[in-house]
């Protein structure tokens, strides 16, 4: 039944053997040494500061939405770093491997990366940046903010939330494991069929890609269900749909997309797995298979995924601009309809990713028109942001700088997107680096919104602002790097340069490729300023402490609770009176209003089971990659067992008596509860289930 694969296989280790460790590749050996040194330093610091217990009790077993959000963001940042290194390698390889006389190093004929290695790098770069950087960063921010914006204590399903996190972490870990054990896929982040099929990719790279993708997509689907249920069912009294903060509306729209599309990619990948493991022919070129079906299924998920990541970014921009324009958001209802409109249209545009597949002209025309239609709700948003700023008292603090610059990238990315929406134009630039530059503009818009959002909400989560001077230098260098990399890339695209070239045959492209390298160096410099910003912020946190409203002109509900937010979010469930509740209270002098009566607060207990499920998910995926059947069966059985055990557990929640809530609130007011555990997000102790202490 199982497909026979040539090469060694043993019952104990499957296809895994010492020869699969790439110890002869100096780049990977260097990366491994870097990882080992980093791990030793982190373990040493954790031990030195006695952080192990805190790490276990307050983070790894936490179901607190704020901590889960922070951990999502940390995963996103680590993977962003990895994806960035891949980008550096691609830029330098292409600049070095120009023309037949270019030198070759490290077994490469030209440049320093062999074609197979280069292919893995661009595949990893795309997969990581979309699935393991942008998605976790945005899901993390949604995790932190949505319950706070709607006045909830936590997500609707805190346990499920932790499961989603650890499945995503398992997927990211699998991608990282492929660096040092075996190799990664070499057929592009979206999988080029039939290259993904076993005869053309008999190694384990595609399997790594496939199972990492599966883990993360299951995690994101579960996260989407959770966020939707939270928004629909957990809103505070008075939080009507017409008063829902705009970021929460954006999250709702985004997660409608995630709920409806991620299952499609799950099925698409499952069919690929059947092809690779059981010898079916869903995507083969013959024997009844249909390789175009893979493109179709993948992009039915793939394009809505673009909007899944862009809508929360729009939501963040929509929150930041009114705060720093000191005006309510212009056209709130228009923004809501536009968000839902983008989510709706996202379902009818996917074929523009393969206009050149030779579909009938009427089909291409249909998808051209639907793609252009995306510009309508997006245009509504841009004008609304502009009108919000118009005649506002604009302050260009760091979040506003990032948000304003994001609008510029939306303009460039959007207009080039309109160009690509014409099937006729797409025939000219399809598969060129022009398209690559276009979608990087859109993704950079997301990155800018994320940096804006992180700067904006950081004080709410941690209680102190990020430092501004180094932050501004980071902003300007990052922006300069973006311009210097991507303007030449657009140009090269027009000149006919196709994407994914490990060797560039035309020496006349060399100057522009060299300029791109300069840009990437500027990016590296900017990263140094980001590190400096974080270091100085941490060092000077005492001077930069903020109150509930960190910016003085914030508008939505999350700004009425303490900074940092206590683990129970709100001392009493807030009564919502207006769309911009914080402004409404501020205008009526209710900033310091305290509850008259406190009530018991019901909270979920910590548990180690989600972490266990994530670890077993990793084990199962690793076993399937290497075809270690006993391990796969063991992990599958253990996953089922853990789920059943959890289903029969009692005491999964606890209450905090009202008098304790009152005392904690009074301590905060008096400043007695200095930045101790209670002021770290979710920092108060709670019982640990499933192996905790």
């Amino acid at each position, binding site marked *: 039944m199982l497909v026979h694969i040539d090469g060694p296989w043993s019952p104990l280790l499957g296809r895994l053997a010492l020869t699969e460790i790439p110890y002869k590749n100096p780049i990977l050996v260097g990366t491994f040494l870097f990882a080992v040194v980093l791990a030793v330093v982190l373990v040493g610091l954790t031990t030195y500061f006695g952080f192990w217990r805190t790490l276990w009790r307050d983070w790894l077993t936490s179901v607190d939405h704020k901590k889960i959000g922070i951990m999502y963001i940390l995963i996103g940042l680590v993977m962003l770093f990895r994806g960035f290194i891949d980008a550096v390698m691609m830029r330098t390889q292409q600049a070095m491997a120009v023309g037949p006389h270019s030198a070759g190093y490290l077994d490469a004929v030209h440049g320093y990366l062999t074609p197979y290695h280069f292919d893995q790098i661009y595949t990893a770069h795309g997969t990581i940046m979309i699935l393991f950087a942008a998605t976790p960063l945005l899901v993390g921010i949604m995790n932190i903010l949505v319950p706070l914006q709607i006045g909830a*204590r*936590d997500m609707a*399903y*805190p*346990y499920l939330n932790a499961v989603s996190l650890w499945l995503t972490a398992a997927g990211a870990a699998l991608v990282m494991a492929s660096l040092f054990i075996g190799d990664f896929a070499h057929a592009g982040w979206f999988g080029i069929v039939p290259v993904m099929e076993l005869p053309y990719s008999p190694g384990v790279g595609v399997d790594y890609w496939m199972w990492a993708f599966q883990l993360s997509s299951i995690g994101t689907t579960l996260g989407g269900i959770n966020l939707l249920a939270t928004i629909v069912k*957990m809103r505070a009294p008075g939080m009507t749909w017409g008063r829902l903060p705009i970021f929460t509306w954006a999250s709702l729209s985004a997660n409608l997309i995630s709920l*409806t599309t991620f299952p*499609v990619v799950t099925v698409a990948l499952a069919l690929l797995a059947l092809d690779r493991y059981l010898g079916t022919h869903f995507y083969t070129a013959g024997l*009844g298979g*249909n390789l*175009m079906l893979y493109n*179709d299924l993948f992009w*039915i998920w793939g394009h809505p995924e673009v909007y899944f990541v862009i809508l929360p970014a729009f939501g963040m921009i929509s929150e930041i601009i009114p705060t720093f324009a000191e005006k309510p958001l212009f056209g709130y209802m228009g923004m809501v309809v536009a968000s839902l409109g983008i989510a709706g249209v996202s*379902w*009818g545009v996917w*074929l523009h990713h393969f206009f050149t*597949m*030779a*579909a*009938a002209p*009427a*089909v291409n025309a*249909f998808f051209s028109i639907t793609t252009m239609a995306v510009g309508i709700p997006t245009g509504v948003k841009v004008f609304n942001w502009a009108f919000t700023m118009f005649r506002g008292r604009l302050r260009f603090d760091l979040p506003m700088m990032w948000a304003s610059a994001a609008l510029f990238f939306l303009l460039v990315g959007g207009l080039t997107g309109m160009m690509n929406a014409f099937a006729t134009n797409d025939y000219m630039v399809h598969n060129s680096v022009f398209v690559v530059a276009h979608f990087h503009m859109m993704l950079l818009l997301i990155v800018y919104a994320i940096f804006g959002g992180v700067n904006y909400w950081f004080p709410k989560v941690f209680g102190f602002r990020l430092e501004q001077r180094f932050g501004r230098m980071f902003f300007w260098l990052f922006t300069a790097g973006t311009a210097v990399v991507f303007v030449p890339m657009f140009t090269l695209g027009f000149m006919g340069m196709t994407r994914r070239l490990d060797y560039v045959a035309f020496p006349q492209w060399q100057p522009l490729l060299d300029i791109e390298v300069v840009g990437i160096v500027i990016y590296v410099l900017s990263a140094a300023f980001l590190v400096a910003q974080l270091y100085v912020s941490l060092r000077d946190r005492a001077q930069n402490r903020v109150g509930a409203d960190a910016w003085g002109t914030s508008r939505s509900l999350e700004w009425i609770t303490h900074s940092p937010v206590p683990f129970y979010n709100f001392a009493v469930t807030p009564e919502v009176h207006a769309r911009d509740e914080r402004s409404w209270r501020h205008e009526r002098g209710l900033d310091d209003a305290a509850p008259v009566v406190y009530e018991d*607060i*019901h*909270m*979920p207990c910590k548990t180690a089971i989600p972490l266990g499920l994530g670890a077993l998910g990793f084990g199962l995926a690793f076993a399937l990659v290497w075809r270690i059947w006993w391990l796969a069966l063991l992990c599958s059985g253990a996953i089922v067992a853990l789920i059943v055990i959890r*289903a*029969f*557990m*009692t*005491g*999964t*929640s*606890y*209450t*905090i*008596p009202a008098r*304790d809530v009152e*005392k*904690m609130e009074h*301590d905060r007011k008096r400043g*007695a*509860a200095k930045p*101790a*555990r*209670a002021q770290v997000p979710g920092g*108060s*102790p*709670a*019982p640990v289930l499933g192996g905790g202490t």
Partner: protein
Amino acid sequence: MGIHVHLRVFAGRDYMTESNHSTFEHPEVQLAGTGYVAAYVAGIALMGLSLMLVKDHALDPTALGIAISGIAGLAALLQCVLLLHMTLSRTQIWQTVALVLFVPLFILTIGLTSWMFHGLYQRTMLRPIAASQAMAPAPLRAPR
């Protein structure tokens, strides 16, 4: 921090998460009855039938496509009835509404996909011999 948080297992009203003193008394489990098992068995049986049809090439490609689609539709219907308990009752109406809201997406994606492949098969793609004979316009058929 100078404060001791008294922890006690929640034993009263639900504020946020579902209380679960007895898993078997959970509303979802109560609702399930034997429907879940029946849905699972029916699902396996119908998938097994599909597998047999495909594995043995029991029908020509066009008929096979129709048969598989019919079986999939039947499986979906059974799941809706037995697993999701889709009714208009107060407890279940949102599940029903949620699925109904998905229907336009199915029509959109499956319909557009069919439209796209219809053109593709005629223009560029090869099909299995039997199907291509069945679908090809008369002038393109090989002369006998």
